[in-house]
């Protein structure tokens, strides 16, 4: 038998929670994929076929070769827009000896009556959610064939006391975690390892004597609780979480790498890094305020730091070259009244909004001084100063206007507002497509390419308008 896990499916609600792909979102501090792979071990499945999508790297990093679960893992990429069941048909040669398929955010929730190795009694079944196959189990290829062509009715998993729980919203995800902490966590722990009050504390958790832990709670590894904090009841706290003094965490889910500031009250909320989420209606507030809530681990990897340093010095060089021409030419541009700076509001990934001076042509007449100013990219000089202060990137996506570009921002998972972007040298640039593409292939090479092309294009076109002037 082979297990096929489709991790390529898009999941809107999970994107609201943070950068963690939905298969790695923790349920009671363990990634969802961990439960799936554990089920493989219970079923005696030794071969796992993982269908990867956008978040391939993170999922591969987590599963690796599958040694941890004693399974042999092979990876494949999904074709965009390919239906899951069609994909299963194309790999029918793989499941000649049976199939165990998971096709989306789906949790095998053990009921109280579930017994260890209960999976062994599972019969061929299929469970759908929103008309999509989420779970298929067939010990023979004939049964799998029949299930793929069926509509997915049946009690299958219920018969072995497993509730087929499709996680279709932030609320469902939150409720699942709270149900785990309040009663069900011990069903996933080997008998004898569960504490009587259903609580669990990971490694390296530091709690001062004045910190008040009220069961049931689940706490991951490497957590610090400040003095006079109240943790629980019904709190799920993941790894690398710091809770500062006097704060109270009740009925909540705190995800990895989160800092909770002093004297806060987190009740009925999900906190993930710098995001506070109200699971009842899915409202997300991004707070990047080290006095309140923040991500306690920098997003930067070594290559990000190297890129940042190199580009910072490039910016310094550009500023040094531009400072004298800027000081000489700006007064002339202003006196000629052909153009000038106007302050506009833009989206900012950290503070929500940022005000930037935008160079705007006031009159539609030819002006040599204006063209020279632009050809030397002096109009970008104030933005370059902001790059030096860490407020903007040298190269990146075009800064998005607030509130005009709110819809665009919602579609961007990562937002890197930069001084120079594809639009500076590509007239037919589409802002959304290019922004998504930039976020996908962001690298030092790409940034240097954008910088050189943008500066050259501006210079050679003698400062004529580019697509980036649309802002």
């Amino acid at each position, binding site marked *: 038998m082979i297990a096929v896990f489709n991790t390529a499916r898009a999941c809107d609600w999970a994107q609201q929670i943070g950068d963690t792909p939905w298969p790695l979102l923790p349920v009671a501090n363990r990634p969802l994929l961990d439960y799936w792979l554990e089920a493989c071990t219970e079923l005696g499945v030794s071969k796992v076929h993982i269908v990867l999508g956008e978040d391939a790297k993170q999922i591969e990093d987590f599963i690796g070769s599958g040694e941890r679960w004693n399974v042999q893992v092979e990876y494949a990429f999904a074709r965009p827009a390919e239906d899951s069941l069609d994909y299963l048909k194309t790999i029918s040669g793989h499941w000649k000896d049976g199939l165990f398929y998971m096709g989306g955010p789906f949790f095998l929730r053990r009921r109280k009556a579930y017994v260890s190795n209960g999976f062994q009694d599972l019969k061929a079944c299929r469970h759908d959610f929103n008309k999509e196959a989420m779970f298929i189990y067939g010990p023979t290829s004939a049964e799998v064939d029949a299930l793929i062509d069926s509509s997915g009715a049946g009690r299958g998993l219920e018969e072995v006391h497993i509730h087929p729980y499709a996680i279709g919203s932030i609320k469902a995800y939150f409720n699942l975690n709270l149900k785990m902490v309040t009663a069900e966590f011990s069903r996933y722990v080997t008998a004898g390892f569960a504490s009587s009050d259903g609580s669990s504390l990971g490694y390296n958790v530091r709690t001062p004597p004045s910190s008040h832990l009220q069961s049931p709670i689940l706490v991951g590894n490497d957590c610090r609780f400040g003095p006079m904090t109240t943790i629980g009841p019904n709190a799920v706290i993941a790894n690398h979480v710091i809770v500062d003094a006097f704060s109270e965490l009740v009925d909540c889910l705190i995800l990895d790498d989160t800092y909770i500031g002093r*004297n*806060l*009250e*987190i*009740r009925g909320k999900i906190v993930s890094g710098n995001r506070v989420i109200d699971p009842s*209606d899915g409202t997300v507030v991004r707070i990047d305020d080290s006095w*309140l*809530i923040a991500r306690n681990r920098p997003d930067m990897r070594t290559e990000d730091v190297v890129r940042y340093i190199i580009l910072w010095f490039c910016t310094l060089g550009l500023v040094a070259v531009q400072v004298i021409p800027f000081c000489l030419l700006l007064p002339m541009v202003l006196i000629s009244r052909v153009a000038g700076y106007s302050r506009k*509001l833009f989206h900012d990934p950290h503070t929500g909004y940022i005000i930037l001076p935008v160079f705007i042509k006031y009159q539609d007449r030819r002006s040599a001084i204006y063209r020279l100013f632009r050809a030397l990219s002096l109009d970008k000089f104030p933005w370059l100063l902001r790059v030096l202060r860490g407020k903007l990137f040298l190269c990146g996506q075009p800064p998005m206007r607030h509130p005009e570009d709110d819809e665009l921002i919602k579609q961007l998972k990562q937002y890197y507002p930069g001084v120079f972007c594809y639009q500076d040298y590509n007239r037919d640039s589409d802002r959304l497509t290019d922004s998504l593409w930039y976020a996908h292939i962001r690298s030092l090479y790409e940034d240097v390419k954008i910088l050189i092309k943008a500066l050259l294009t501006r210079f050679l076109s003698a400062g004529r308008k580019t697509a980036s002037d649309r802002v």
Partner: protein
Amino acid sequence: MLVNFSRQNDIGVIKVGKALTAATVDTFREQLSRWQEAESDVKNYVIDLEQVDFMDSAGLGTLIAVLKRITERGGDMKIAALQKKPRMVFEITRAYKVFEIYENVDDAVKAFD
């Protein structure tokens, strides 16, 4: 203009026009002080946050400072039309225990009666 001021029944209604964050609090404080100096007979205030879709600790700190200053002068301040996202900031910081919050400006103004 970040802030719009008006008077309703001798109560100052302060309508904040955008996010109240570290980037905007200085302007807010400056505009408010100027208006308070000009309208020194106004003791009670309603802060209308209908157009405020985000607030950070600096914004919240400023509101607390404004409340303190108003109460020191013998007046009172109420919050009206708090939107969902700033409301969440109020909830996690327990600021809802400090301020009286009303659904809209009219309710807040009536509450002074």
